[in-house]
């Protein structure tokens, strides 16, 4: 389609303005992380980047965050997704309440959930152990609206009732129907949901900081207090890593399902 010159000028000036806003800070991070620090450096240095590997708490924190992410994904795959399918298949009367429950976290800011969960968390870490499981439980609730949206979109697109009936007629058990038949057909929705889970867990700071659990972000903040250059380098590295992951995942339908939260 031919567009008038005025429209093109508008378009590109908008793109440039926003791109500048979003990209200059990212470039500034690269600039800052290669700045000399200490007395030995002259000119540009990659010392901050090299020091990432030797940060004492960092690898432990990354492991901790990844384990938490794994638990969250397990909760999604083996509990939330099957329940959503179960409700769709067997309990049509519960669909509305289930939906409302899934969207409730939108109305409860993370900081409020921390206030509410703090006594329970303290009890669990004193009496049981300080494991990432509690944290993973909270996280799985935080992303519930997004998981639900991408799931219900996927479930609505496929006629799962017919699929389930056909499978049952052919002798499949109910667990086979859920895990072997329906879940593979809504793979995209599940992959989207899991991806948000990873992004959320790696980026989460509010809850873990207040509950004093040293996740990735909490440790980055901690590094920032002693060595800004290294902290900036770590931040940029993790950002690029997530961006790289995202470009690998097919972008076709993702953006619509991810954030078009609909509570009407």
């Amino acid at each position, binding site marked *: 389609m031919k567009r008038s010159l005025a429209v093109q000028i508008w378009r590109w000036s908008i793109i440039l303005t926003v791109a500048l806003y979003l990209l200059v800070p990212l470039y500034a991070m690269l600039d800052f992380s290669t700045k000399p620090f200490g007395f030995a450096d002259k000119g540009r240095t990659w010392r901050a980047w090299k020091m990432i590997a030797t940060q004492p708490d960092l690898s432990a924190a990354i492991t901790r965050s990844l384990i938490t992410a794994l638990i969250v994904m397990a909760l999604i795959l083996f509990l939330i997704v099957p329940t959503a399918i179960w409700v769709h298949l067997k309990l049509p009367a519960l669909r509305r309440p289930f939906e409302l429950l899934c969207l409730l976290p939108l*109305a409860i800011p993370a900081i*409020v959930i921390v206030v509410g969960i703090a006594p329970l968390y303290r009890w669990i870490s004193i009496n049981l152990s300080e494991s990432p499981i509690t944290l993973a439980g909270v996280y799985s609730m935080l992303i519930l609206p997004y998981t639900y949206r991408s799931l219900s979109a996927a479930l609505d697109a496929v006629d799962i009732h017919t699929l389930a009936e056909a499978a049952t007629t052919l002798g499949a058990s109910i667990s086979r129907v859920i895990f072997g038949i329906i879940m593979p057909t809504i793979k995209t929705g599940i992959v989207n949901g899991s991806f948000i889970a990873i992004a959320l867990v790696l980026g989460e700071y509010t809850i873990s900081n207040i509950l004093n659990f040293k996740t990735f972000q909490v440790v980055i903040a901690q590094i920032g207090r002693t060595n800004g250059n290294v*902290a900036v380098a770590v931040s940029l590295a993790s950002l690029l890593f997530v961006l790289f992951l995202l470009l690998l995942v097919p972008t076709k339908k993702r*953006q619509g399902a991810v954030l078009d939260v609909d509570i009407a």
Partner: protein
Amino acid sequence: MDQLQYKGTGSASGRTGSRYWRGKAAYLGVLPFLLLSGLFLLYPTWNVVSGAFKDNKSRFSTTVLKEVYRSKVARHAFANSLEISAKTAIVGAVLGALFAWAIVTGKPGGPLYKVSVALSSVLAQFGGVMLTFAFLATFGFNGLVSTLAIKILPHTFLADSTWLYGKTGLTVLYTFFQIPLMVLVFLPTLENLKPQWREASDALGGRAHEYWLRVGIPILTPSFAGAALLLFVNSFSAYATANTLINLSDFLTPLEIATALTSETGGSNPAEAKSLSLFMVIVVVIVMGLYALLRRRVSKWEPRR
């Protein structure tokens, strides 16, 4: 034929029980999920809402709630929170919507589109610690832009980094993740605009600005307002960015809540934290209610996904 039990949730096997009981047994399937959400979502929510009406010795009382309501510090923090959220929601929504329009008018599925969407998904989640570092590296002391500004524009605000550590700074920072979020939310809406509407307008002799004034903008307004409300909630609830940038515990309501909860000087006051939280929840619930109303209007023309 045998039906295996599904994860021990007691879905009745084919042979036992009447049809009636088999129907009821299906409800057992949601129990594990109910347990999870009860523990990590409903219990905390209930704890906050009921706790707001109790004092620190867990007796029923509205004293703390009233104290918080009357407190000048709390009001100031609340006003700051509301102001910053409103500003960043509006600026983010306008810039994000314009950017989304700029992407949509380009080649669908082209490199600009792909990169913008991927970048937006990352940057919308980019709030918090890393965002603070990015802006400190840009506008902070020794930052990229401030160093430049000292050389070329020494007497402007850019050369003096103090603006970053206040309301203006927070507004600029929050807008950074509001724009990508708006792009993600608004892009599908723009893509759902039917090209036939534009064609009809053109065929009837309408000019471009007439199309936007009479058709485009009226149609998009509810979605736009809804998205802006979502952005409002997003920055209203944000804590991480402010916490790492500003060391004032009473500056925003979330910061105040965190201080009341975890005060290191021993003055931790859970009742106050819960009362403050209740006021936050009330605001968010009102905003999300408005959002729901708007979405209902939108879904008249936009297919629900």
